[in-house]
């Protein structure tokens, strides 16, 4: 009889280097991961630490230019149109921004993927109904949803998530269904059927894990999309409303000052770009790192160095 503990310790060796060390090796992906970590920390701690500072108005000291320490570190990125420190506001806004983006992406993912799994796995009729529903959502203008929800329910963050999530459902639904149609024909799904596995088990244990990487990739791409969509709604006056702040709202509000105080719209815009870029780079890396057939691309560098 072999020793169990030995069997466990042997496993990583065959799997090759750990993900973390592979991440460290790809500097671009590593930087992205660190940036995202910082943004998540901002989102979690920002309002508690800097909430007070970010709301501190000073009308006469508005549009304070950046890169000056005259008014303390908080003003290093300048002050906004009400004289509030940009840096503090950016950090605090990370909270709502991340809430909305993550909330939207997650709920659209769960609902869309759920429906997609059912549509792909179940018979033709169920599938038809769900796909036509997706058509309806796709041709239903998000703006109307936004106005309906905001008018009937009010402009709160959960409602923003609701608005944006509804519009993002079809993409997950379609992708999931397409993948499921392919995956369910695979041999291991038949193998599970032969063993007597229930539909739920086949969907959740066998099909979902195979579809998941694609969904995660779309979700990361969507993250940026949602931040921008939220910003666009703010531009049209039907998005997040003060006193809540998001980067998207800050960009929309800073737009009139493009000539006179560029930093009002520039920094939050830059944050959106950085977040989107980091997510995409990391997800590109993850797609390769988690795919055994592609991993050598990350590996090759190492073997040359050693």
């Amino acid at each position, binding site marked *: *009889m*072999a*020793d*169990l503990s*030995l*069997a*466990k310790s*042997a*496993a990583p060796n*065959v*799997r*090759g*280097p750990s993900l973390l060390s592979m991440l460290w090796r790809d500097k671009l992906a590593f930087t992205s991961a660190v940036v995202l970590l910082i943004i998540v920390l901002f989102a979690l701690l920002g309002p508690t630490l800097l909430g007070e500072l970010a709301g501190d108005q000073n009308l006469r000291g508005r549009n304070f230019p950046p890169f000056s320490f005259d008014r303390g570190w908080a003003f290093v990125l300048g002050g906004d149109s009400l004289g509030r420190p940009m840096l503090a506001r950016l950090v605090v806004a990370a909270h709502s921004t991340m809430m909305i983006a993550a909330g939207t992406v997650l709920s659209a993912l769960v609902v869309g993927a759920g429906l997609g799994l059912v549509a792909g796995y179940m018979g033709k009729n169920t599938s038809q109904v769900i796909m036509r529903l997706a058509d309806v959502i796709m041709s239903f203008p998000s703006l109307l949803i936004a106005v309906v929800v905001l008018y009937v329910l009010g402009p709160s963050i959960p409602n923003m998530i609701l608005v944006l999530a509804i519009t993002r459902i079809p993409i997950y639904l379609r992708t999931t269904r397409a993948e499921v149609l392919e995956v369910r024909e*695979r*041999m*291991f799904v*038949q*193998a*599970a*059927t*032969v*063993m*007597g*596995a*229930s539909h739920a*088990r086949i969907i959740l*244990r*066998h099909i979902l*894990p*195979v579809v998941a990487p694609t969904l995660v990739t779309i979700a990361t791409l969507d993250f940026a999309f949602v931040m921008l969509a939220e910003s666009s709604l703010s531009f049209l006056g039907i998005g997040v409303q003060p006193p809540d702040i998001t980067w998207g709202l800050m960009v929309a509000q800073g737009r009139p000052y493009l000539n006179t105080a560029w930093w009002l719209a520039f920094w939050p815009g830059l944050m959106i770009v950085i977040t989107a870029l980091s997510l995409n780079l990391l997800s590109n890396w993850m797609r390769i790192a988690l795919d*055994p057939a592609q*991993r*050598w691309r*990350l*590996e*090759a560098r190492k*073997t*040359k160095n050693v």
Partner: protein
Amino acid sequence: MSEPLLTVRNLSVDFHTARGTVNAVKNVSWSVGRGETLAILGESGSGKSVSANAVMNLLDIPPAEIVSGEIFYEGEDLLKVSYEKHRALNGKKIAMIFQDPLGHLNPVYTVGWQIIEMMTAHGRPADMARARAMELIIRVGIPEPEQAMHKYPHQFSGGQRQRLMIAMALMLKPDILIADEPTTALDVTIQAEVLALLKELQAETGMALVLITHDLGVVAEIADRVVVMNKGEIVEEGSVRDVYHNAKHPYTRKLIDAAPGKGEIRLLDQAAPLLLEAKKLCKTYGNFAALQDVSLTLARGQSLAVVGESGSGKSTLARTLLCLEEADSGEALWKGRDLISMGRSELLGVRRQIQMVFQDPTQSLNPRMSVYQLIAEGWDIHKLMPDRSKRRARVIELLEQVGLDAEHVDRYPHQFSGGQRQRIAIARALALEPELIICDEAVSALDVSIQAQVIALLDDLRQRLGISFLFIAHDLGVVRDFADTVIVMKSGEIVERGPTAQIFDAPQHPYTQRLLAANLDPDPDVQAQRRAALIHA
């Protein structure tokens, strides 16, 4: 041997992979002359295709890296010529055909377009190419050649696709044709035809043929010389007959010994109780009759083989017996109870008793589940072994039963070789202590040496545990070694049935006879005799 046309000298190629650098081939040298057929024989992972790919400049660099070596053709080292020059040689002077012609033909273009492109890509006028393509399509025996030009690859059968590939390769009358496992995916009768075609064409054009294969029978049938590869190195080299009869290297010996179809034929135990009985099963898809009045019986502890070529309905039979497909009519009785009309919960109980091992373990094992999860899943489904603490020990026990180690328990399928994966699939089937295991081409994707081991394992399980087997296969050698009874299927019908010895020694139906005749024997002398007999007939 005449002046060599193509010479590979001391070629070493490394692959950089996630698990470190792999020396794919080490100091490989071979050459081939005009009109000669060289076989490169080896099992999967032996590096037999690497040198051919290097000749064609098809290696992906990176991850591949050519460490050393030379490839001489017409006095030039192909590893040193410019990309453009190498490209101009490909197809024109050296052509290549592949295993799996479905994947290797572009699915979205007509075969006519693809064949013609072989010439237009090298600057020949399109009308000339069209005429030549027609000529070759007729030559390789495609029916209705005019229409065939406008069809897409998926509209042809496997054998036809390989013929089309050959036609394409021969468009510019190349000096050398490299064939990478050209018949592996084909039925035996088709394989024989394709090999015969290759031989004829070689005789007509005088080209050199480099044949990469894992099948000793193919080597015996067609090759003049053979190099045997193992783990990236050439272990044996010589004329086919010489190597077969006087193999020096132990690996070659092992390979030759592992070839199936040479053991004792087993005798049937008539007394065993009946387990499964099918009565007049019928199943049609549209106009296509997949099963017509198929009846069979299987007793406890016995193994029943179903043989037939692709499209004969043998897989549909398995799927119908497993209730994956619903039969149009007929009965399938499991211990006297009809499976087809059975209720859900009763069927769930039967599902535990009948297990299946699929052809390709790469696909039948969920890549995202560990070995432990794969094997234990059945217990979750059937609510067995509620004491989870004992499960692990039982999984290890099963792994050891199929010849794997305890330390494999937390690994994932992609970390195993093909043979090991099939063992995991068998362990998974055994976990539910079934009474019947249906094997759908369970060993046909495996290398011969592994194949022999798996067959031995199954045989052992049958004897020790009294499990019955329904064994679906197209490889007659394997069937001969394992089955008690054989059913031969063609176009959804059973054309012949009987004890194994009867089928092999005195086949009645012409189709059975044809199957047996097309089966290639690893012994070049035996194969030469068969060929002679076929020509006579």
